[in-house]
């Protein structure tokens, strides 16, 4: 039984599946990383994902064009991000509580709109797997890495991109400064409000795309509570990843690969009780977090609203 697990086709299946599963987590958690590095905690990621998922889905349903769907998700995600930024930065609400509010709004609104506008179990024709000449044909490697759809590739390209922005650009420097010591950044002429609005809106856009990756790429369907907690795991993954894109990538992959593994374990028939199998990704992620915690310090100004004094 166990030897069935270590065959090439199964390992290929697990890896390909894990890469696919990690996609929404990556988009959402990279987006949240930007926000948290600038000091803003957004617990409403799940709600923004759901609104993005529905908007993308509905746009594709109407226009049959998945690019329009992606655009709709970006716009709606950005608007929700704007609202979040307004509530947390300008109105200086308690970020934990306002995040839950945004989550509930996104959950309820996406479901309400779905019931009113669609009200049926429908599938759409979303992003398909793309074939890359030569690369897709490589045995094993090609199947795992080069047979995914474009939103999957987008998620992984986001990692080096966000690393570059955060660590090698002036903007990234400003984001870090605002997240560590907003008062000092302010005296040096950095617009704390401006930077925070930017990161939170970016987080919203990415969360919207995360939702769309589910509704118009991977699953091609919308249902109430489609994301089922992915947004909250994504926030946890930011902590897990030490507020660094590479760490977030590691966390997303760890979680998703183990999830993919437990599905295969069950399908092959290895006698692990299904309840335990389903718990595995969460348990292992917590274990790794416990072992590696304390290595990274959180941004000093995280969750603290900034008000210019004097």
């Amino acid at each position, binding site marked *: 039984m166990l030897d069935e697990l270590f065959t090439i*086709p199964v390992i290929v299946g697990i890896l390909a599946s894990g890469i696919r599963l990690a996609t929404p987590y990556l988009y959402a958690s990279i987006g949240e990383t930007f926000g948290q590095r600038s000091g803003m905690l957004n617990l409403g990621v799940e709600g923004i994902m759901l609104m993005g998922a529905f908007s993308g889905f509905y746009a594709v349903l109407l226009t049959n064009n998945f690019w329009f769907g992606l655009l709709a998700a970006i716009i709606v995600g950005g608007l929700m991000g704007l609202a979040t930024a307004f509530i947390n930065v300008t109105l200086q609400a308690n970020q934990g509580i306002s995040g839950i509010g945004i989550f509930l709004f996104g959950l309820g609104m996406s479901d309400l709109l779905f019931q009113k506008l669609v009200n049926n179990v429908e599938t759409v024709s979303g992003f398909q797997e793309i074939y890359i000449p030569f690369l897709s044909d490589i045995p094993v490697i090609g199947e795992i890495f080069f047979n995914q759809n474009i939103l999957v590739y987008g998620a992984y390209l986001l990692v080096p991109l966000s690393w570059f922005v955060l660590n090698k650009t002036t903007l990234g420097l400003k984001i870090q400064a605002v997240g560590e010591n907003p008062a000092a950044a302010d005296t040096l002429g950095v617009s704390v409000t401006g930077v925070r609005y930017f990161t939170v809106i970016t987080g919203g856009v990415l969360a919207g795309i995360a939702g769309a990756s589910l509704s118009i790429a991977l699953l091609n369907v919308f249902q109430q509570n489609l*994301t089922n907690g992915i947004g909250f795991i994504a926030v946890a993954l930011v902590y897990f990843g030490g507020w660094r894109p590479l760490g977030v990538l590691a966390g997303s992959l760890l979680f998703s690969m183990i999830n993919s593994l437990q*599905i295969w374990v069950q399908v092959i028939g290895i006698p692990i009780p*299904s309840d335990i*199998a389903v718990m595995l990704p969460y348990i292992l992620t917590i274990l790794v977090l416990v072992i590696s915690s304390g290595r990274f310090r959180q941004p000093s100004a995280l969750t603290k609203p900034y008000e210019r004094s004097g």
Partner: protein
Amino acid sequence: MKKVVGLNILLLLALLLAACGGGTTGGGDEGQFKVAVVMPSPINDLAFSQSMYDALTTIQGEKGEENFEFAYSDSMFVVDDAAAALRDYASQGYDLIIAHGSQYGASLQEIAPDFPETSFAWGTAGDTFGIPNVFAYEAFSQEGGYVNGVMASALSESGTVGVVGPIEVGDAKLYVDGFADGAEATVPGIEVNINYIGSFSDVAMASEAAQTHVAAGADSLTGTAQMVVGAIGVAEEAGVPWFGTQANQSSLAPDIVVASQVYDWTVVLDEIINLINDGTLGGEAYVLTLENGGLLIEYNDGFDLPAEIKDMAEAAIKGIKDGSIQVEIAE
């Protein structure tokens, strides 16, 4: 500061009044039978909740709107919200209140004794808690599972069939066990790969599970609960036949859905309503079976099912109905 507080109190009072005033009052006619139902998922989930909603709509169509009215609260996946809704309906004077979800059992145990004049029905479960105004109902979904298993294994050329299950509990487990039993009885030695995704609603996991089954060689698939829409999408893309349960799922993938086990709750509801009209408010447990017509196998006309496989299915249905086939449920 005082002004703001005063304004807030006024606002709160206004909201409270609005909340009290709203909601269905259940009509004022004498003789109109009023039913309220609380469900864990949307009424158009093509699965659990839809089956109950469809049944109530059917009954309303038969009896007429002047004689039968029903209100519903769906998507009540948070049990506390459901409990509040149940209590709310009870205090509005409904004749029958249906708690359509086994997770509502504990709440019902507390609520039902507070409203001894109201009848409650709880499903899917067999326990009425010994409370005189509680009915219980469940579905022997292993029967339809068996029939689906017969067809799935007969159709399979690879010798492997796949099952995407939600949580290993209740009628989901019954269905999966029945399916495995039917498959093994028809093609001894067939590989029935089963996985449970740990949720009734995680569409992404269901989709990934279906992909895994297909990659592991399954060429017939089935599953239960509202998350199956993710699995059906994968089945359609892979061209793999799908067997549905709880509701007729042909509309979702007309090319690959072979047949669905459909729950017809009217069988149970009609009896309960008659008992209530005669003055009995509870104490009975009901089951949907193939034999009493509560479970039906509906074939998808759009799928080209070979005649001999359909005959095998019909033989299985007949065997279960007359008792010659006993469907085994794993412990």
